[in-house]
């Protein structure tokens, strides 16, 4: 299940940051991805909201600056949803 999620997040990232999927990994972040700027960051967040049917809090949006943080966040939200 986690792998499914990871795959989906990576795919979305490759499209919004215009980067080859092979170069996307858990360490990809705003610091090392060239086209990860404020506009593409928001496009990323909005796409994740659509894909996983989430509402990401504005306060958290600024913090989610790496794929690892994002995947952990989504997993946390999903766990909350189930309980």
């Amino acid at each position, binding site marked *: 299940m986690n792998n499914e999620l990871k795959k989906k997040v990576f795919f*979305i990232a490759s499209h919004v940051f215009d980067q080859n999927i092979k170069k996307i990994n858990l360490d990809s972040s705003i610091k090392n991805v060239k086209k990860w700027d404020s*506009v593409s960051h928001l496009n990323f967040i909005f796409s994740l909201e659509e894909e996983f049917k989430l509402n990401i809090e504005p306060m958290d949006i600024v913090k989610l600056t790496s794929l690892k943080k994002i995947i952990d966040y989504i997993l946390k939200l999903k766990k909350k949803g189930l309980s």
Partner: protein
Amino acid sequence: MLNNNKILSPAEVLKENKLLIKKSKLFNKINIGILTNYSANFLEPYIKNSGFKFSVNINSDFPDFDQIEKNLFEKKFFKKKKQIIFISFLLDYLLEDLTYKHFSLSRRQKKNKIFFVIERIKRIIDLIQKNSNSKIVILNFPNFFLDFNKFSDQSIMPFLSSVVSELNLEMNNMVKKLTNCYIYDFSSYITKHGSKNFFDETKSRLAFIPFSIFGLNKTANIIARCSNALSSKIKKCLVVDLDDTLWGGVLGELGPDNIVLNDTYDGLKYISFQKKILSLKARGILLAISSKNNISDVKEVFKKNKNLILSLKDFSSLQINWNDKATNINKIAKDLNIGLDSIVFFDNNPLEREWVKKKLPEVSVIESSKSHHDYIEDIENSHFFDQFIISDEDKKRHKMYKEDFKRKKALKKSGSYKDFLKNLKISTEIKNVNKFTIQRCAQLVERTNQFNLTNNRYEASEILNFIKNGGVGLSIKLSDKFGDYGIVGFIMAIQKNQCWVIDEFVFSCRALGRNIEHILLKKLIQKLRSRDKQEIIGVVNRTEKNKLAHKFYLDFGFKKKGSHFVL
């Protein structure tokens, strides 16, 4: 059905765009500008995606956020030429204080606020029209979406929405007086979908993005449709089938008394579809039938069935036979003297549609839904009939084709072409082009391909500009005993290097063959000669379609000089 109803996330849109990049190199390019008081750059990939669905490649340009006037003044915005500039303001940002102050403002204060908004837009339009020839499309004001009023306030105090209505009314009045400036009813569109679905308060507070993902998709689609409507060839004719299209069932099998066209649920749906088609006719779209049926059966239906909205007279061409539909459409194009690329085909049978698409690729085919419940939406979503201007000529088109039919009959009857012309009782009227006739003249310039000597597709504003700077523009009206053609020709000469240059000369192909175009040219020469004895240069820019006009000037004593002609 065109897949323009799916709501895409930014990632999905970017992905689709990437897949279509190669194909898009073949598309026509449209450059647009978008002036907004919100973050419009999130619309950009959506606009591109919507454009791809119409086979156009739309490039959008935005000024820096909240820097509209600054960017326009500095003119760098005009460096890259744009065919269309969109203006969209949301009152929630523009008149933000109104949302919580409006009960404490006097009527005069409210009027002032409205005045300042209109003045600002006027100034922006002015700047654009002074520095470019771009067409302007204004998305009018939707209702406030950040609304703090509760029911009790709204029921006893003046509505906040009355400010919006007044603003939109003022804007209508302002735009009516301008050329090349249009309004799209954004407000009604959003009402139809609901503000709650269209806007997103969180995104708005986060980054001045007022729209939800749904709103982004829909707004971009509107912008793409408007761009397409203003830059693509107008469709002049809708060809429809009969069975399971205008009524339910196959006439040949059920007989005229048993087709579904009554007050049952299904019957009413077909009646509604007929009303939709009739409304197209009122806008100037010609109607034609291509149906595999016995004509006697069809005539009986149209004679007996009281539930029909349409009558046979509403159609300008009837191809009711057992020929294939491509042959029929070709005949329709010939009968109506229009190009195949002006025709839209609607048929519920996918095999017929595939056949026509294969045989006549220039014809626009609507991918109709399986169920007749969706036919009206199919026509509306197809964008083929999107139009901002409906000219007087458009409204009279059906009548004009009827009169043409009578002329053809008279020609057949008369002994010779000369006799025919003599009996026509032709009368013409030549006038200087003015603000009432400019739209029709500009329409002729845009649409005429065969008798179009220069192929300079000048816009209304450009033509008026030429006239203001000393040019001469004449339009000619034609009528005969069968009816009025309206304005059929336009010619314009401008001063260049101490010569007169005939930079525009177009003539409707419906009116050719009577030497009326000769009358127009003679009048122009007369006018120019009454002013001075300068050389008159007849410009001819050859295209594939204007072959008949290549040697036109030679008949008037012009001498060939290079690719043009000089008197």
